[in-house]
């Protein structure tokens, strides 16, 4: 723990993130609610480097995330460039534009007949994973005593979609479930290997599983193809004595219970999900995190709109039984204005915690739909 004479990441805060999260978890008063604008490649903009320079250079990736954390003072650093790092290590072709987020070019295999060629990753050797591990080490060394350092771990079902292509995988879900499980198992083995390396570097994995959304697969398919693998990962992280956040994009309300059943400690929900509903349905089981709109509000909104959205989120979930983290619904677009991220944190600072009697009364008098 840094001593009190050390500079705060932001002069506007009283506590360091680890102090805030620890006290908040115990139900003690804190300076403000935890706040996590999910900063990804926007970190490159804070450091003033190109997006592609982060992806395969542990030092620059670390410097960018440290610089972003120090500028904004948010409560969690997530070392992340894109969802494809594990799939790339398994043979997927990733396209890396000079100054934009990388994306999937070609899946690792084109049909299930290629499955025998797939091997789980060695995170110390394959693709850009060694550089990501290096970045985690550096971030932990530099600021790990004051802020939790996590690294994104792509969920096995989502990774499977990068191995064989999302359309192919979607067909196999109905036509050849055994092969889907085979791809998920290979992806799980990779994820466990990377998770272990994240822990060795001093970080904690944070689960993100875009394709498991109810915007894509049915709750029943989630239960069969996503849940068992997410549960293994959550159990593994718990066995290491750490808590875990699970993010799934898009619609998720039909699978909230199952998401909580994975054992995840915090659900990060997107804008197609409603915080108030989530609180009422599963708030007694799990912490919630969300859900200021990443593009409509954070990228394009005015400071006033950002402030209003933060207030709306807080009004919906500040009293969530298992706690609440003000966050963006999903990763922020790279070009989100830095001042907008400041505005988000400033709104959370303005509200403070516990939420004032005045604000509570206002919330009670203006019930949300």
């Amino acid at each position: 723990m840094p001593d009190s004479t050390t500079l705060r990441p932001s002069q506007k805060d009283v506590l360091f993130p680890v102090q805030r999260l620890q006290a908040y978890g115990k139900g003690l008063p804190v300076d403000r609610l935890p706040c996590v604008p999910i900063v990804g490649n926007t970190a490159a903009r804070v450091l003033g480097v190109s997006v592609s320079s982060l992806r395969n250079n542990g030092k620059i990736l670390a410097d960018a995330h440290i610089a972003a954390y120090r500028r904004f003072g948010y409560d969690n650093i997530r070392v992340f460039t894109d969802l494809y790092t594990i799939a790339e290590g398994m043979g997927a072709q990733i396209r890396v534009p000079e100054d934009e987020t990388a994306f999937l070019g070609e899946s690792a295999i084109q049909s299930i007949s290629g499955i025998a060629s797939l091997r789980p990753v060695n995170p110390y050797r394959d693709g850009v994973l060694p550089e990501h591990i290096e970045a985690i080490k550096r971030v932990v060394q530099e600021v790990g005593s004051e802020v939790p350092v996590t690294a994104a771990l792509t969920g096995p079902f989502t990774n499977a979609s990068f191995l064989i292509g999302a359309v192919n995988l979607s067909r196999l879900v109905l036509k050849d479930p055994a092969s889907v499980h085979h791809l998920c198992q290979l992806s799980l083995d990779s994820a466990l290997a990377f998770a272990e390396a994240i822990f060795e570097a001093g970080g904690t994995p944070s689960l993100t599983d875009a394709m498991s959304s109810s915007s894509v697969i049915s709750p029943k398919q989630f239960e069969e193809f996503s849940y068992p693998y997410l549960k293994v990962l959550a159990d593994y992280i718990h066995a290491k004595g750490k808590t875990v956040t699970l993010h799934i994009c898009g619609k998720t309300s039909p699978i909230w219970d199952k998401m909580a059943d994975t054992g995840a400690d915090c659900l990060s929900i997107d804008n197609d999900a409603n915080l108030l509903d989530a609180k009422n349905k599963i708030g007694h089981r799990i912490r919630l995190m969300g859900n200021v709109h990443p593009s409509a509000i954070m990228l394009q909104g005015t400071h006033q709109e950002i402030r209003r959205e933060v207030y709306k989120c807080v009004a919906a979930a500040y009293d969530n039984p298992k706690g609440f983290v003000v966050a963006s619904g999903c990763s922020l677009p790279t070009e989100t204005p830095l001042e907008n991220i400041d505005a988000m944190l400033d709104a959370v600072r303005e509200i403070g915690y516990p939420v004032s009697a005045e604000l509570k009364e206002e919330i009670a008098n203006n019930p949300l739909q």
Partner: protein
Amino acid sequence: MSDNKEQIFFTALSDAVLDMDETTVEEVAHKVIKEKFDAYRAIENGLVDGMNRAGQLFEDEEYFIPEILLCSDAMYAGLNILNPYINRQQQSARKKVVIGVVEGDTHDIGKNLVKTLLDAAGFDVIDLGRDLPPCQIVDAAIAEQADVIALSTLMTTTMDAMASVIKILQESGYRDSVKVIVGGGPLSQSFADRIGADGYAPSAPSAVKLLHKLFQDTIHA
């Protein structure tokens, strides 16, 4: 009497599409040809009807992407058999849509879904693919004399490419001849308004409704 018999075949096609049963669709489509029933009506009252029912189940959250994909596979299997037997006049009234995923994004499930539902709704859809430079989209729209450009992205990083398409359309003097609609996870109505698109569809079925609205339901007239 023959109308009745015809309708039994059409219903079988519709049900087989809904049941994701490609084999049955092919069998029935071949019988439609053999019995010399009207191929156009078999498409409309059979395949398209089945796809519309599937689209409704998707909206009702009973079907999801995997089911819709297999329904669309079944529909296209039937279209491949029946299309050569429909006459040109029946095709000419259809509005032409060019659809694609903008540069920097290779997610095309959403786009494929919209294409399928637009096909089923009677639009003439030309699929440009994914990861498309804005110029290529505009060139294709002009070359095809398209009525609609439908653009999709799943990635926030590529949203600016959509704005570029509209800018290039304006510079080409073709903006007023074509409706531009956008959709995809990170977008919003306010984004569509800001870049000057004609409409925003939050989901695949709503893209069909949006186009019907933009053309004031003249598609099937």
